[in-house]
């Protein structure tokens, strides 16, 4: 019998359950991702996408099951800066008095000393990250003055500066301009080549077909999981979205 080497998996979630004060948000969910894989997380609002992210980052505790990140616990993944979370634009206070530079520098906090004094290497990492998302002209711009796409890129830069090997992205394409969308998709290819693992939630079915090697369809639990070409079928999508046909959701043959 073949033994599974858990070290091979970047993310290995086994039968995880999450409940909030007795209300079940997610149950018996499984996910295994290897380095260099991009996986789409698809489901309705309230289907448990954010909960799944929260469980992987350790922001909520799982009530059952097991999560291993690079073969280790979530706690040690946090200490090692293994996971970066890129929030959806609605998830952050855009009026917070903070500049692009400061947000990206937050990606380095976990590896700094207690006073969070940036070292030379931190400054360099932040510079490089901002350059990769093409925001060098906006270093000291308050995030409130950025467009939706620029703000999204700022948080991507934070994830890059963090040098995480796993990226969790909540709706990376919502509310962004064409330029940002193109830049993000180029970055995805680079990340893939660097061996990073990406889990992204999206409402846009076209993006799933375009970027995702794998797709995880959830509705409180896993509806279907596997290669996008095999699993991302109209039948599965209909089941995921509670009986509504994909034609209705995305127009015929989108």
């Amino acid at each position, binding site marked *: 019998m073949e033994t599974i080497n858990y070290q091979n998996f970047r993310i290995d979630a086994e039968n995880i359950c999450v409940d909030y004060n007795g209300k079940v948000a997610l149950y018996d969910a499984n996910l295994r991702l290897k380095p260099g894989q991009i996986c789409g997380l698809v489901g309705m609002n309230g289907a448990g996408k954010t909960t799944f992210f929260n469980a992987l980052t350790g922001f909520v505790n799982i009530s059952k099951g097991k999560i291993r990140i690079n073969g280790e616990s979530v706690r040690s993944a946090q200490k090692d800066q293994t996971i970066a979370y890129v*929030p959806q634009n609605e998830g952050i206070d855009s009026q917070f*008095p903070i500049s692009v530079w400061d947000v990206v520098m937050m990606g380095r906090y976990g590896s700094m000393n207690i006073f969070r004094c940036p070292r030379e290497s931190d400054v360099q990492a932040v510079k490089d990250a901002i350059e990769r998302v093409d925001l060098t002209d906006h270093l000291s711009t308050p995030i409130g003055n950025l467009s939706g796409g620029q703000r999204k890129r700022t948080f991507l830069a934070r994830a890059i500066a963090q040098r995480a090997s796993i990226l969790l992205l909540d709706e990376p394409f919502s509310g962004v301009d064409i330029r940002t969308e193109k830049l993000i998709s180029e970055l995805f290819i680079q990340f893939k080549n660097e061996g990073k693992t990406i889990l992204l939630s999206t409402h846009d079915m076209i993006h799933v077909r375009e970027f995702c090697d794998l797709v995880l369809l959830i509705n409180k639990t896993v509806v279907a999981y596997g290669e996008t070409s095999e699993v991302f079928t109209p039948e599965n999508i209909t089941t995921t979205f509670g009986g509504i046909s994909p034609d209705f959701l995305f127009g015929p043959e989108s």
Partner: protein
Amino acid sequence: MELCSFLTLDSFITDPLTHGFMRKALLMSSLVAAVCGFLSSYLTLKGWALMGDAVSHSVMPGVVVAYALGLPFSLGAFIFGVGSVALIGFIKQKSRIKEDTVIGLVFTGFFALGIVLVSKIKSNIDLHSILFGSPLGISLSDVKQTIFISLLVVILLSIFRKDLMLYCFDPRHAKTVGINVFFLHYLLLTCLSLAAVVGLQSVGIILVVAMLITPGATAYLLTDKFDNMTVISVLSAIISSLIGIYVSFWFDLETGGSIVLAQTFIFLFAFLFAPRYGIFKLKKLFAGYKL
């Protein structure tokens, strides 16, 4: 004529300084204002105004009990301040009641308990000075306590300045990179309780929440940089305290109320004329002119 005496700015400022109690009041109120102003940026950004109100009212029974037992009043206040927050968290988690309702419910309950205790214990507690503050009559032991607590809060906030900013801005990211969010949450609450304790000496329990939110709100209208916001908040808090005390001295007004009113006026000024976020946007007003 007394009116003439403060027509010269010089005597307006220096005359009160000849009184020892005024020097003490000015110094202590400035210190307290600085501490509350520092914390204020975090509370405003975190959206904890109601929490500040709750904690500051909830310390009331603690102050009374501590006085009755001859303990430092800050100790009693601190225990009840943190206790109220714990109780709010507990009720919220164990019932279906919404958070703002729980907050309102808990702090009024604590406050009422405090008032009842005052009427029952009948010691030398001055209800008026607890409710409305008495910066002019602050005792020596209170001065020591205030200095100690203020320094403690300033040191804690300075050490964890950036972590607290991250916690207010994006707690999820903080957690993801292994920063102890639970600790930061309670650190901020602890500082809030401590600041409420020192603040109530200046302006009293009822108005102390103003010390905790108004300077931050004013600063928030004036800048887009967090560090500047803290500096402006601290400065506006100190200036308000000085103005409030002077005005109350010359016009024989309630000191706590004067301090808070001064803060409110500074806020209104920012609200109307802040360069970017004010109603009249000074920048635009003068846009046509070369200044």
